């Protein structure tokens, strides 16, 4: 069978040559995109450190997947809704979601104000159940269409998610109703310990677009520019009424599934080493340097900025004090608390008081 065409712009400074960049990306854009990669990378590395120190809970690191996040988001219009999975947990910080809120989510403790309002940032809540947010992305773009607006939506998910029924139902709905939805699949070739070969018999995930009669593109998932370009084209098609697009960002999961996972149990670290040099942050930095678009000072400035922002975010998270037990009940309904809640809260408060008294 013919090889799968894969969109790529950035070389690796070795065998992979740089290609002419697509239109629509100014030098300013390239630097901004790089700045965002640095931001995401810094967040990820700090978060892993925090977890090791026991300051947050299990954390789904995304080291190496920054380009699949910053690239597509940079292609979106500000009013477009994006739906992250746990793997893109920090992407909202590029849309104004406070860093402390995301860290708080990992810590399992978001303070009295609770989690952010998805409508405020057009960023869906971090989705844990695999593939289940895809129909939501469809619903958002569909609703916009019903209202006569051209707001689009994008959902991130993994290779494993393509096996779930909701993936299928979402793409089918988007195709039938021609919603402006971008299905962005980060194919990092692993679902925890399950390799892509156990996930699908398809030649490539992008081939699944055929099943829905929709457009499909495969890109180098370690190339932020390719991720941007494929998404921008998909959004244009979508707004033009040509329906959804399935984008497969082919890459490799360079880290563990999460901080609780030990990949040595199920995969060969040699393979990891093979892919590692292609990771997007160094890759884009190399490109910008080869093109003379960036200097040491700027790079250091970006690094420092990211470091400061995230340090501040950590402070903010840890500044959130003890949580009132009322938080269990207060946000479950938008309408007023039912009697079951008021009685529950009473019982809880009484028993905690007794406990304090007792000890």
């Amino acid at each position, binding site marked *: 069978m013919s090889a799968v065409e894969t969109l790529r712009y950035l070389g690796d400074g070795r065998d992979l040559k740089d290609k002419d960049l697509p239109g629509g990306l100014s030098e300013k854009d390239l630097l901004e995109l790089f700045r965002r990669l640095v931001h995401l990378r810094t967040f990820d590395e700090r978060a892993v450190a925090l977890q090791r120190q026991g300051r947050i809970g299990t954390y789904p690191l995304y080291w190496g997947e920054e380009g699949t996040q910053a690239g597509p988001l940079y292609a979106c219009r500000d009013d477009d*809704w994006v739906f992250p999975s746990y793997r893109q947990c920090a992407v909202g910080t590029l849309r104004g979601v406070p860093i402390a809120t995301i860290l708080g989510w990992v810590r399992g403790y978001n303070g009295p104000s609770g989690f952010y309002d998805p409508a405020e940032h057009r960023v869906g809540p971090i989705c844990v159940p695999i593939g289940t947010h895809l129909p939501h992305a469809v619903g958002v773009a569909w609703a916009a269409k019903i*209202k006569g607006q051209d707001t689009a939506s994008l959902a991130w998910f993994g290779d494993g998610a393509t096996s779930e029924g909701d993936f299928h139902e979402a793409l089918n*709905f988007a195709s039938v109703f021609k919603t402006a939805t971008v299905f962005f699949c980060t194919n990092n070739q692993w679902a925890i310990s399950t390799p892509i070969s156990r996930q699908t018999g398809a030649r490539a995930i992008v081939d699944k677009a055929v099943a829905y009669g929709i457009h499909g593109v495969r890109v180098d998932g370690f190339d932020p520019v390719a991720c941007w370009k494929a998404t921008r084209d998909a959004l244009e098609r979508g707004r033009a009424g040509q329906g959804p697009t399935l984008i497969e960002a082919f890459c490799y999961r360079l880290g563990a599934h999460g901080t609780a996972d030990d990949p040595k149990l199920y995969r060969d670290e040699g393979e990891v080493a093979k892919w590692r040099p292609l990771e997007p942050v160094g890759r884009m930095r190399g490109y910008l340097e080869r093109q003379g678009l960036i200097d040491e000072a700027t790079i250091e400035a970006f690094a420092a900025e990211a470091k400061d922002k995230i340090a501040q975010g950590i402070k903010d998270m840890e500044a959130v004090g003890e949580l009132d037990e009322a938080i269990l009940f207060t946000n479950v*309904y938008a309408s007023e608390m039912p009697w079951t809640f008021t009685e529950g809260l009473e019982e809880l408060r009484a028993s905690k008081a007794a406990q304090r008294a007792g000890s």
Partner: protein
Amino acid sequence: MTELNMVEALNGAITHAMAKDDRVVIMGEDVARTGGVFRVTAGLLDKFGEARVIDTPLAESGIIGAAIGMSLYGLRPIVEIQFDAFVYPGFEQIVVHAARYAWRTGGKLPASIVIRIPFGGGVRAPELHSDSPEALFCHVPGLKVVCPTTPKDAHDMLLAAIEHPDPVVFMEPKRIYRAGRQEVPDDPDSDDDSILATARTAREGSDLAIFTYGATVPLSVQAADSLATQRGVQARVIDLRSLYPLDVGAIEDHTRSCGRALVVHEAPRSGGLGAEVSSLIHERCMLDLDAPALRVTGYDVPFPQLANEDDYLPSVERIKAGAQRVLDF
């Protein structure tokens, strides 16, 4: 003003809501072109067009999931599940998303959708067209679960559900869809949505309180009438209307004032709503009870083939027998 049956009343409520609020859309399998297998959505396609009256692909999880997405963007989707047992493929979307969206977003963005489910037996239907899954939803935190029994309640409760910010599972007792007619004004009596949380007295009486909902309400009234003539006892019949949260005040008051209680529903007994009602009765009113509250329910079996459904369904006879046991304790 003409009298309507429940199907017409529901149709009227949806028409009313869609006319005055263009955020309201209705979607499901065969709801547009045919107006639904029960004709609840008949005529809506012509009135409101196919952008808002939507025949969907055959995929309940996709339907409910897309409706959730629509609600995030500010629409007020009404989902029709074609038959009770076909809500199961959409169960995950209901439990992990519809029910948790408000909670997950710190109360900021609830999934404001209504999921209409024609449910229950007694219509001589094939397998999986007669389930009563309501108790499952009552155990899922974050949902409101309601069940109307009269045309007017169906109309007013559906309007309230559409305006309600939280997700509402709207159980429609299909067996009494066309059972009786009633005057149904376009505008509900009150525009607060207390009707979604309060029980209704369907028959007065002071010797025994029968708590029930849906198609077993009229049966319980029949049983009460026959007990009145045969034994001279007056059973009060309470139509719960709200299945979650339960109207615990009404449950306590009616239990106390009658001293005896019976719970009736069509769903299987174990883990059914009757278990929750019975627990509340005993936990809160033990000293006011002259007898243990008992349950008359469906059995713990899959809904039988249609030729046998009358053996499964709580009958007037079984309700009376249950009442006698409580009265004669």
